């Protein structure tokens, strides 16, 4: 068995440990280490983390979030607000380097080895780590946590998202074959088949370590229907630099405090306390920031970016893009079964005009692929990217649906996603562009959670807005999901063969290429495999990629050390505030 270590890990570890050797009062290491990501937005991170001033300890940080956390039982977490808080009170075995969407660094595991067949991983744990309830984090605790993912208690099944997404099932259906303790600080984990993005997936906060004692004492495994289960509301217990101390008023605030016994004193929190105040409306969040009601806000509306960048008492923290917004077609529905109609629609849309209106101030960039332009497998101009009204007209004329070609265009109500800030407005702007090419457009809309998502996933809509926020920068977590096939009965079409409901992208060559890429353990080969797959996919024109979007935080200039991450894996132990602010 050849022991492998990724290069990224060694480099990251070196930087981390070098910085950790200083005292707690030195500037946080991350502020001096430039973010690994080369995306354009990441330069903002450097500007907010000046290397000059010395970190100040203490103080309360008030953070204007968008809503309350939904759960803090790590394995069930799936929404951004819960991610944010969990990221501070829990830790994973492996972490993403601050600001990066793919570089790994040690977390609760000091190091790890992978077997040559890509099936067995051995983790060597940090020692002397304690959960905030005082119990020890060791191999036993890690094995208990991983067994909980594998054999997710029946009442929790269906409440989870990442467990089933990453491991594909529970019990015998789980990708986890076995997990075995080797000694007090070592354990190994065996998979049923190789999974190329396994280590990256392990950085997701749902796979964080929780105190088995606290889980049991608060009946977390009995499920949400059991009234004795108050684990996440009363006692979410992890090893992180912050911990919950009981102060949660739904709709008003959620507060965490510094963990005084954090196992890694060099990385202990600077702040004493963080209060998250949910403010649903983005205009209200900006008001809260400007009136100093809060120190920092997340998800600044694209139209308000200028208000922050032009205010000398405020700073903008920009996350590199990791979301794709697009216009999808269903190839099983007329007239989009004709590739010329799809191509005509793609050429008809003036993406640049659209982006400058709906993603102003650099909130988004024109997209030409389902992949983000900072991913290794990305190839420029893979999809139809240019705006060419006359070409659109010509294509439509020669298609099976010559002008006036009647189409139904679906957009969602009651939603704003980073990649689709104002769906109704975007639809209204696209409509005249399509009409200029010879389409006759009938709009239709449904609430996002009121049928839109389910109908869309089932292939009911011929043409629709959709998008995706990557959890980490791997195509398997993007096109790998969009164009996946299943034998389910979608939109009433009983399929004998596997079939892609959402886009009707049933090209067998695409399916084969994606399967090859998803199970390829070697990074370089995998990247090439994905490039090949994307070429095949783009040739079919299953969608029109519109925008790559990031998101931005706004903050007073008294907040330092915040490193925005495209995946929102942001570590608040690095954050500090000017004294007296």
């Amino acid at each position, binding site marked *: 068995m050849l022991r492998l270590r990724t290069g990224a890990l060694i480099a990251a570890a070196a930087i981390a440990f070098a910085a950790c050797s200083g005292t707690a009062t030195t500037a946080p290491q991350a502020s001096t280490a430039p973010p690994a990501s080369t995306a354009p937005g990441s330069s903002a991170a450097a500007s907010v983390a000046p290397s000059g001033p010395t970190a100040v300890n203490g103080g309360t940080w008030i953070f204007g979030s968008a809503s309350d956390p939904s759960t803090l039982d790590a394995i069930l977490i799936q929404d951004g607000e819960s991610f944010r808080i969990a990221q501070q009170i829990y830790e994973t075995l492996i972490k993403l380097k601050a600001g990066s969407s793919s570089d790994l660094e040690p977390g609760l595991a000091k190091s790890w080895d992978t077997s040559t067949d890509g099936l067995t991983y051995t983790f060597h744990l940090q020692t002397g780590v304690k959960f905030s309830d005082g119990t020890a984090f060791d191999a036993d605790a890690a094995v208990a946590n991983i067994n909980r993912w594998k054999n997710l208690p029946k009442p929790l099944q269906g409440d989870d998202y990442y467990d089933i997404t990453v491991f594909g099932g529970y019990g015998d259906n789980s990708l986890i074959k076995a997990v075995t303790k080797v000694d007090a600080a070592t354990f190994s984990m065996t998979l049923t088949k190789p999974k190329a993005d396994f280590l990256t997936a392990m950085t997701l906060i749902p796979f964080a370590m929780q105190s088995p004692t606290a889980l049991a004492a608060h009946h977390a495994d009995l499920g949400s229907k059991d009234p004795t289960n108050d684990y996440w509301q009363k006692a979410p217990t992890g090893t992180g630099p912050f911990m919950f101390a009981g102060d949660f008023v739904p709709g008003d605030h959620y507060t965490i405090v510094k963990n005084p016994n954090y196992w890694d004193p060099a990385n202990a929190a600077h702040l004493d306390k963080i209060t998250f105040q949910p403010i649903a409306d983005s*205009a209200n969040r900006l008001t809260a920031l400007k009136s100093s009601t809060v120190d920092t806000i997340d998800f600044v*509306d694209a*139209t*308000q970016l*200028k*208000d922050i960048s032009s205010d000398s008492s405020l700073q903008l923290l920009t996350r590199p893009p990791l979301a794709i917004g697009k216009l999808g077609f269903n190839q099983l529905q007329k007239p989009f079964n004709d590739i010329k109609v799809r191509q005509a629609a793609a050429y008809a849309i003036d993406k640049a*005009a*659209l982006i400058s*209106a709906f993603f*102003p101030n650099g909130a988004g960039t024109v997209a030409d692929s389902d992949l983000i332009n900072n991913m290794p497998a990305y190839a420029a101009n893979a999809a139809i990217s240019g705006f060419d009204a006359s070409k659109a007209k010509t294509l439509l004329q020669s298609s099976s649906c010559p002008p006036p070609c009647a189409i139904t265009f679906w957009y969602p*109500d*009651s939603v704003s996603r980073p990649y689709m800030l*104002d769906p*109704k*407005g975007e*639809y*209204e*702007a696209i*409509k*005249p562009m399509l009409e200029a090419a010879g389409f006759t457009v009938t*709009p*239709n*809309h*449904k*609430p996002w959670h*009121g049928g839109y998502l389910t109908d869309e996933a089932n292939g009911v809509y011929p043409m629709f807005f959709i998008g995706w926020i990557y959890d980490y920068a791997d195509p398997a977590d993007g096109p790998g999901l969009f164009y996946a096939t299943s034998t389910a009965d979608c939109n009433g079409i009983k399929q004998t063969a596997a079939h892609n409901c959402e886009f009707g992208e049933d090209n067998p060559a695409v399916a084969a290429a994606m399967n090859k890429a998803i199970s390829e353990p070697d990074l370089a080969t995998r990247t090439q495999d994905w490039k090949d797959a994307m070429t095949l996919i783009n040739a079919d024109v299953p969608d029109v990629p519109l925008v790559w979007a990031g998101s931005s935080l706004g903050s007073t200039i008294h907040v330092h050390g915040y490193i925005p991450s495209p995946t929102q894996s942001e570590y608040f132990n690095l954050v500090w505030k000017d004294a007296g602010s």
Partner: protein
Amino acid sequence: MATGNVALRQVLEEPIKGSSLWRDAGHRLLRTPSAMVGLFLIGLFVFVAVLAPIISPYNPTAGSIIHRFEVPSIQHLLGTDLQGRDILSRILWGARSSLWVSILSVTLGLLIGLFAGAISGFVGGWVDFWIMRVVDIMLSLPGLLLTITIVVFMGPGLNTIAFAIAIENVPIFARILRSSILGLKESDFTTAARSIGAKESRILINHIMPNALTPVIVAATLALATAIVDAAGLGFLGFGPQDPSTPEWGTMLTDTYRYLTSGAGFTALFPGIAIILSVLGFNLLGDGLREALDPRLKR
């Protein structure tokens, strides 16, 4: 809507005694300046709605994002919106949506509500008991949530919005009609008619109904006002017309508010003012009618 309906629900609490003196009431109404202002505003509103195609300077649905958020100028008196469309034209056309929703919702509400209220009032007994329990249930549901639920259920569109608002008004109309019928059944003039041997059906048609309808008419006028507010509120929350290019004041207000800092933010004021003026018109008239029809409040 929970709050918009407050004014309407108020009619439930202070029923107006019926009066057959319609002509007197008309005279009194003409002497009430506020009611005349109301009539003027309603007239203006209807005028704009009917003549929108003629008086609008531009096509309210044509535009391009290239010309978004232009400030008011000679070409565009109130500026342009996010899609580069002329705001003045959209406000003028928006009157059509509001007028349509308010008239349709009140008509539907009256049809169902009066039917239920009349049966309840005349038949009495168990029928009355159960109809009134349904009315109680409907009145105790949080109004806005009920309306949103119906709109989501039936799919977007102005007609759906009108129907949802109508459903909200049904229990109010039903209860008003029922209580005035009950009051009139025992009134002196009904007893008098009965004592001279008039048939029950004749009493019903000639004596009770005309008088019982008086408070309903007042309530219907006020309901026209709340319907406009409710429709705008739904538009504000994102439940607007089926085709989003259809001008609708509530939706216009939200759209501009969202981009308040991008362009001429004050343009958000214009649809708001249009809503207030038209609603005020119906409220002034409704209030004038109430006073004119209520002999107790003779001046």
